[in-house]
């Protein structure tokens, strides 16, 4: 039988939620309590509902209940026993609802902080009712798990005692809160030392024998206190801490996956911060194997590759161990299982990148597994973090000169998505793409036209004008690498896009690192066939003068070195070129003894002395007809005398070049007559 037409349809979802919000303001305590419970049940673990109620203003309403019920409790024994109980329930439920909003949800944390709930919760930690204390501590713990939580100042007043009191509590939520505050707020070496001096490590170590929650909270806090601080680590290793290292090591075998992961992270922090600890090869291998196993875990599988990365990053010995443990194959197997969620994919790509940062065998293995397809696919993923991680991986794989020489990366499958990422809306993705491009364009097969045709140069030139100096320096570095051993046609195309004026402004950039890359670019431009030198003589020798001016005014050795190699390369040309370099090094009206050449020959940096002496080798090159005049000039400027002082330079390269330059100078007489 059809339902009665007169029966009212259920209210729409939206109005049901508004109704619930309305009930939070009810004059009846019981109704409020029920509304709080309903609210809490609806939002637990449901981000969408949290957001809906957030928009409806639920957090200020709940905070208002917490505030009034806390105030009522503080006003003393005015209410009867049942009322006290009811009031405490209101406090507990409102605190719990606030905690639910804050749990794993930054928008919720922000709303909670904005509504002023934080100080209310903090005051409740000293409330006489243990259940109230537990509820408040739990909510505060969730807040402290967010980056948005205020930093706790351990060094101020009695704050350290408060932390000690939290960790001394019998209540698990309270000790967990203490640990969370440390994990969130301890950042400086001074804070780490203060916590260590206050005996916090011992308290945290005791918690390692507690419940799963306590173990995990303690491991996280310990990692925070130990990170980058060998002194505190030494203290941690002392016997008075009850063999804490052994306990943490044991926890890498715990049945709970998260505990195993956190124990591994703690050991990695110790290993990375104090290399004298954990020398045992077995523990290193064990860490690698555990982290590989944790990759399979649903709960912590996303975080395991990040922990693996922190273990192996920039450490060749560990990369070799990981390689022998088949880490590359296992990571690639995960990629094959795809599609993976963003966080997992990002972590795996970063771990692969770190594996390939130094070892050629790792790069070879990754390539032989035909895994680069996953990397190129990831270049076009929705997640910016994944795109950047894919670039990072590509950057490290393309550090292989062997593969660059084989022209392995200069093809459309890599170049097109990478060039597209130069337009990415996220700066960190652009930076990551620039790094990968810088390597790929080194390509020794001189197939660089393809990169230009894909619009790569055009966009690199745009980025070289960025206001962000990191982007600028990386864009210029990519152009520099592109210009390495490139043919004339490509040089022309690069210069026509870049223009002499832009290149001059990059040589004179306010940032020394940009100047260095721009000068290295010019150095490459004037290398190769003799005609290439003409590039710095265009537009009234705009670039050559800019190099000269920069060498007079710069202050960083790397800038001088690149600038001197520009002059060296130009001075390897014909008479006009050599004379132009002489003019830049010894301007007509300047005092020769203050010349930059004189300064560079006296530099403490052997690389700069080498570059300077090479310029002299070219300027005194015997088969050039003007050499005799230049030698005379150099002799008058005291340069030849200085060369005599350098024939036993401690740097072999300098010594040999100084002897060559001096020998060439002497072919025109020793200047004694």
């Amino acid at each position: 039988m059809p339902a009665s037409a007169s029966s009212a349809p259920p209210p729409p979802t939206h109005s049901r939620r508004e109704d619930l919000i309305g009930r939070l303001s009810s004059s009846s305590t019981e109704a409020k309590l029920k509304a709080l419970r309903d609210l809490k049940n609806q939002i637990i673990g449901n981000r969408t509902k949290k957001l809906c109620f957030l928009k409806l203003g639920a957090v200020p309403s709940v905070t208002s209940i917490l505030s009034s019920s806390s105030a009522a409790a503080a006003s003393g024994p005015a209410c009867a026993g049942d009322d006290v109980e009811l009031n405490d329930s209101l406090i507990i439920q409102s605190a719990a609802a606030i905690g639910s909003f804050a749990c794993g949800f930054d928008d919720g944390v922000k709303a909670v902080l904005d509504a002023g709930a934080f100080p209310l919760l903090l005051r409740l930690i000293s409330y006489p009712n243990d259940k109230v204390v537990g509820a408040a501590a739990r909510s505060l713990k969730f807040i402290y798990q967010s980056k948005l939580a205020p930093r706790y100042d351990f060094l101020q007043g009695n704050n350290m005692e408060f932390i000690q009191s939290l960790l001394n509590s019998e209540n698990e939520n309270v000790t967990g809160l203490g640990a969370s505050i440390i994990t969130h707020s301890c950042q400086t070496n001074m804070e780490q030392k203060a916590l260590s001096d206050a005996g916090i490590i011992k308290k945290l170590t005791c918690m390692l024998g507690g419940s799963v929650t306590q173990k995990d909270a303690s491991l996280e806090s310990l990692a925070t206190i130990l990170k980058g601080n060998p002194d505190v680590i030494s203290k941690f290793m002392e016997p008075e801490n009850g063999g804490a290292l052994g306990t943490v090591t044991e926890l890498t075998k715990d049945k709970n996956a998260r505990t195993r992961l956190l124990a591994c992270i703690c050991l990695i922090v110790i290993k990375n911060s104090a290399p004298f600890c954990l020398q045992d090869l077995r523990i290193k291998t064990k860490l690698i194997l555990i982290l590989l196993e944790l990759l399979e875990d649903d709960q912590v599988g996303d975080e395991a590759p990040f922990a693996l990365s922190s273990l192996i990053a920039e450490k060749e010995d560990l990369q070799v161990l990981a390689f022998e443990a088949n880490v590359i194959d296992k990571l690639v197997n995960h990629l094959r299982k795809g599609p993976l969620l963003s966080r997992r994919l990002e972590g795996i790509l970063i771990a692969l990148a770190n594996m390939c940062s130094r070892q050629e065998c790792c790069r070879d293995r990754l390539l032989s597994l035909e895994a680069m397809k996953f990397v190129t696919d990831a270049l076009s993923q929705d997640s910016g973090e994944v795109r950047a991680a894919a670039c990072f991986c590509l950057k490290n794989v393309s550090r292989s000169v062997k593969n660059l020489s084989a022209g392995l990366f200069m093809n459309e499958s890599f170049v097109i998505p990478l060039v597209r990422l130069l337009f990415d809306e996220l700066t960190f993705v652009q930076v990551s793409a620039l790094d990968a491009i810088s390597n790929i364009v080194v390509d020794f097969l001189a197939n660089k036209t393809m990169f230009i045709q894909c619009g790569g140069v055009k966009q690199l030139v745009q980025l070289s004008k960025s206001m962000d100096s990191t982007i600028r320096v990386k864009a210029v570095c990519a152009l520099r690498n592109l210009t390495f051993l490139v043919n004339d046609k490509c040089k022309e195309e690069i210069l026509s896009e870049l223009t002499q004026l832009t290149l001059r402004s990059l040589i004179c950039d306010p940032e020394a690192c940009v100047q260095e890359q721009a000068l290295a670019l010019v150095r490459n431009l004037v290398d190769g066939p003799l005609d290439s030198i003409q590039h710095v003589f265009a537009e009234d020798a705009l670039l050559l003068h800019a190099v000269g001016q920069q060498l007079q005014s710069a202050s960083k050795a790397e800038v001088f070195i690149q600038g001197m190699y520009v002059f060296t390369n130009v001075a390897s040309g014909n008479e006009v070129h050599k004379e132009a370099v002489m003019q830049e090094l010894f301007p007509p009206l300047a005092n020769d003894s203050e010349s930059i050449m004189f300064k560079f020959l006296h530099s403490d940096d052997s690389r700069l002395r080498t570059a300077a002496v090479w310029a002299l080798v070219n300027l005194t090159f015997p088969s050039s007809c003007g050499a005799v005049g230049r030698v005379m000039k150099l002799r008058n400027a005291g340069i030849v005398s200085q060369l005599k002082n350098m024939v036993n330079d401690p740097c072999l390269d300098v010594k040999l070049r100084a002897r060559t330059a001096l020998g060439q100078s002497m072919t025109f007489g020793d200047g004694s007559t």
Partner: protein
Amino acid sequence: MPVRVVEASSALSQPSGGTSGNTLPSACTLLSVGQAFSGTQNVSSQQKDEAWRVNVRIQGCDLDHGYLCGTMEALNVPMADTPVVTFWEGEIVDTKNYTFFTGKWGATSEDDIKHWTKFPSFSPLLSQVEVDAGKSLDLSNYPYIFMRWKEQYFVNVGTDCGLTIAGFYYVCFSCSDGSISGFYYDPNSSPFQKLELKSTNEGRLGFSFSSYELQ
């Protein structure tokens, strides 16, 4: 040249006990990335005299790992229509990453000594190499760099080109003038094929240097 031998002897030293300074060969700009060399490889056999013109370009250099690599182009190879380009990787004998003893590629320590002693600049080192493969030598100020170059793959022709890259080169580089001498070693090829290269300046009146920086 006698001068060089004398200089070589005086530049050679053994690290004193407890010294932890750098004993690796120092950086030499003439052996840096982008540098080019040209010369010949003598491939004469008992039947006929023959030499191939050879061009070499340095593409990568990592002194910390004793690593060098580049390409080698053989120009007038009889059985090839085009110049044959191979990619090679080099082991720099730095006594840390690599010693004078090859220990692979079919070369015995006798083969090693037999080839190294063909370089006059090796003679001051011989006695110590016989003792400990030269592990205790300080080569940081020695004006010659000893290397082994092993071709890894053909860049522009297939493996069916009728040529072999099974062997490797014993190489001696002179830091003074950038000249390179080498001997090809392959038990199945003519012995002691000599490689002789000089630093090229591509029509310039002087030396030119380019560079790149991997990220």
